[in-house]
């Protein structure tokens, strides 16, 4: 993987983190509205969104970090 590829891959990380958290919270809010048990699903959605955001980021960063070690 060259530098271009590593750099370009990381341009999407911010959007990914934001997308996961916002998506999780919206899903939670929608479910809370549906079943009327606020704020259980909102908090669950937030937690799940955070988990996906950070685990996904970690997986995205792995190739770049591996390259860093080789150099």
């Amino acid at each position, binding site marked *: 993987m*060259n530098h*271009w*590829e590593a750099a*370009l*891959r990381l*341009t*999407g990380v911010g*959007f*990914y983190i934001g*997308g*996961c958290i916002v*998506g999780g919270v919206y899903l939670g809010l929608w479910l809370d509205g549906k079943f009327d048990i606020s704020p259980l699903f909102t908090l669950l959605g937030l937690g799940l969104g955070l988990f*996906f955001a950070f*685990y*996904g980021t970690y*997986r*995205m960063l792995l*190739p770049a970090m591996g390259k860093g070690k080789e150099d």
Partner: protein
Amino acid sequence: MAGIGLCWRRMGKWRRIGIIALISFGLIAVGAVFFPISMPRFELAAEVLWSPFGIPITNTMIGAWLTILVMGGIAYAATRKMRLVPHGLQNVMEAAVEMLMNFVESIAGKENGRKFFPVVATIFIFVIANAWLALFPGFMSIGLWHGNGEEQVLVPFFRGANTDVNFPLALALVSFIFVEYWGFRSHGFIRYMSKFVNVRQYFGGMGQMLRGRVRSGMGMLFSGIIDIFVGFIEMVSEMVRIMSFTFRLFGNMTAGEILIFSMMFLIPWVAAIPFYGLELFIGFVQALIFCGLTLVFLVMAVAPHEEH
């Protein structure tokens, strides 16, 4: 009068520039006091100009069509009298295409690079042409006045297509479809889908449990559940790509347009010039990021699964 002319000729360069600047700012200040104009309103959504047969034609659509026409015209002019040793426009176009080709091949390799080049280069050229064409005089400035009295707004005929959220979205969908198409083509349907829905370990674990091997079955079940989670993350990140493609291009281009627009009305003639330079650079960078990301995702989609 002759005395003033003589005086002017004897003056130093900096003093002359200072006097010109002073007079210009004085005129602007006087103009602002005696002929006040309201600050322009920037419409985020593209404005509909006409709706023939119920199909709305927006000014960004006209901008995109103009880009197609201009690019088609340049391509025709560059290839009209082709020579083995290129010169003039043909030379410029060949150099540009070669630079793009080197960029694509440096990331995707020789074989894949040739395959991906048409898609990636088309995206680059279309995005950069849209961005740069929108800086020409006439864009955002020639149009029709709508509304009445104080509430009049100018609806321009031409507007950069990148500033309409539908256009980056369409390009993002094109990029997404090509990535998935090549992924499916190079791995086959089941193998490529296993990246998103990976239940092999899970069912293997279930089988082990049924056969009475509880310990190894539990281990496989656990890693199977992790695989399912990872597949879900892959799916989410694939979907987020469309969003990030769309809003990155739309946001950057719209912000640039608004910046130039407001600078033009704050201090006319002078203040907008540096920002035009900045917009030239941003147009290039955004086109490079859009095509580069498409390329990287294409490479990731055709790469063997073990690699990532």
